[in-house]
């Protein structure tokens, strides 16, 4: 029996306390300390979670005694924090979108991997029962060569005029629909098909936010001939909660995946995979397998327990810093493409 893994949590916002609660249920883990500037939150955590609380990450790292950290801070802060975490030789799980530049992301990926430190970014779709099943089917060639996809996300997150409060109100801090929402859809595309070779036809639209986009659309092209669309909107009040959907078309079949399940259409039956000719439906109730502890979705537990396993087994995670840096490259390509498109529209 190993000594328990000692974990510190930096940032006790909504994701911070969610991850804190989940990882605290792992039998081999002890959450020993947290860092957050809010005295109100710290007071609650000291009293109800029995952890030592600090107001800065520097104080948390200085105190020592940790094996790993979970970082759930606004992304603009993450490069500096992760550099310090790396100097202290700690494994790190970071909430998406990780950092705000692909260059910084690649640099951190190289330094963590070079030091043999486990590194993971919280693109949680990679641990979702439906999307993981879709990836398995795509990689096993069930749809033959894939020609086309469409990745969509909708939510009622910002449905009123925003006054520009909080870190979410500006790009410089990592706010906006592209970092906060579209990044999930982009990462899912990378996870399924690899990083696109070319980004075209992008637009960023403001609806209710003052300084950042609420709608993101783009076209992704691959040297192999594969192409796909990204369409995300977080100001759509017709949705009660976030919805995530991807459609994949290949020469031997098609799949539509969302949080409710997987619909598969095959012109010919695929007996090895138990799929009939025509439409097949695999609902979330068929695809989901329970996790040891549930909070907000199986995938949240699975990704953190996988982080612990990766540390124990000294292996890579399902979403490394390098994977997240690739997603940031696409985010940057969308920004650049939109700048071009804007100038063309004005001219």
């Amino acid at each position, binding site marked *: 029996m190993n000594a328990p893994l000692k974990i510190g949590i930096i940032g*006790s*916002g*909504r994701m911070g*306390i*969610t991850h*804190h*609660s*989940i990882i*605290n*249920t792992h039998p081999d883990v002890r959450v020993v300390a947290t860092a957050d500037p*809010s*005295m*109100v*939150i710290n*007071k*609650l955590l000291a*009293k*109800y*979670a*029995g952890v030592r609380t600090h107001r800065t990450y520097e104080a948390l790292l200085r105190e020592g005694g940790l094996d790993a950290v979970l970082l759930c801070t606004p992304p603009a802060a993450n490069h500096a924090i992760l550099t310090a975490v790396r100097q202290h030789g700690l494994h790190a799980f970071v909430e998406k979108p990780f950092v705000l530049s692909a260059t910084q992301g690649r640099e951190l990926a190289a330094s963590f991997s070079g030091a043999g430190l486990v590194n993971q970014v919280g693109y949680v779709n990679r641990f979702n029962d439906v999307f993981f099943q879709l990836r398995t089917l795509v990689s096993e060639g069930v749809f033959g060569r894939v020609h086309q996809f469409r990745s969509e996300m909708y939510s*009622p*997150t*910002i449905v009123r005029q*925003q006054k520009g*409060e*909080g*870190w*979410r109100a500006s790009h410089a801090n990592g706010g906006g629909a592209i970092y906060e929402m579209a990044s999930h859809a982009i990462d899912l595309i990378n996870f399924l098909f690899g990083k696109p070779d070319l980004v075209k036809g992008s637009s960023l639209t403001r609806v209710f936010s003052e300084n950042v986009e609420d709608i993101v659309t783009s076209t992704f092209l691959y040297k192999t001939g594969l192409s796909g669309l990204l369409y995300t909107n977080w100001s759509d009040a*017709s949705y*009660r*909660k976030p*919805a995530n959907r991807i459609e994949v078309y290949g020469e031997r079949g098609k799949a539509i995946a*969302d949080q*409710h*399940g997987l619909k598969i259409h095959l012109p010919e039956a695929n007996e090895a995979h138990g799929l009939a000719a025509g439409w097949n439906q695999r*609902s*979330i*109730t*068929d695809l*989901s397998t*329970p*996790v*040891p*502890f*549930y*909070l*907000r979705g199986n995938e949240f537990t699975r990704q953190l327990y996988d982080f612990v396993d990766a540390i124990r087994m000294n292996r890579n995670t399902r979403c490394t810093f390098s994977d997240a840096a690739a997603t940031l490259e696409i985010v940057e390509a969308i920004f650049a493409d939109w700048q071009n498109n804007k100038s063309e529209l004005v001219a």
Partner: protein
Amino acid sequence: MIDRVVFGDNQFFGINHMSQDKASEQAKRFADLDRIFEVYGYAFEAGIRAVMLNSNDRALAICDRFRAMKSQLPPIAWYPSIPYPHKYAGLVAEKGMVGALQGLLFADGAGSALGKIAQGAMATLSFDAVRLMRMLVDQEMTIFRGLDVRVVFLQNIIVDLMLGFETPAPFIEYCSHIRKRYGAKPGLITQNLPLLHRRLVEWGIKDVVICSSINKIGYLMSPDRASYEAVIAQNHPADYQFMAMSTLASGAIPPTEAYAYINQLNIQSIVFGASSRANIEKTVASITGGGEAQ
């Protein structure tokens, strides 16, 4: 004892785990309060006398009509659940954690009772977390004033978050507040029934209603169905009362099969939602038909 059959509310608010289309369709249909009361009418005609309702943005209008129609309706036992999780999630997304907390506390203005206490607390940073919890509970519960409240459920997003922290204090405080202030039983909704049960036993918190997904295919049952069955089999209803939800696993299990499974478990209560007269009658018949022997 709690009611064997409780009529839930998911069908009214566009909640369907299997289909977004079906959910939107239902939300459209029930935008009109008359249509909601038509369905409650079917439920009462089928013999149901217990209602579970989440404190969401339509709950006040629904409760107002129940209060206004009191003399025309049979006596109803109420099983509210609090809070409305999307309200909190939305606030956090817009304002961040501390901003959201302030938004909640000052929702009725700085001059309101809650606002005044909160203002003092924020200024001195010496606020009392227990008092804060009680204020938030009481604020949600104003929706249900004047109704015969039997159990007040805390939503699973809060229960399971606190459960992960493994600290008894919030559970003890919540349960004692519900008993004292409302003369009702505390209820806890969870997706981790075996773990919650184990902790409640360890912490000496008894006579609590535990509501959880319980179904034949083990959907949303963490860590697994066998652990649920073991805990349920060994329980004495004087210690804890179990209420099953998601018994059909969002429609994945046919009703006859689903309730044949549920009825042979040592479960005290079942909450279900349906919107047609036929489905409501059929469900009530399959639950009460085989379930009295415990």
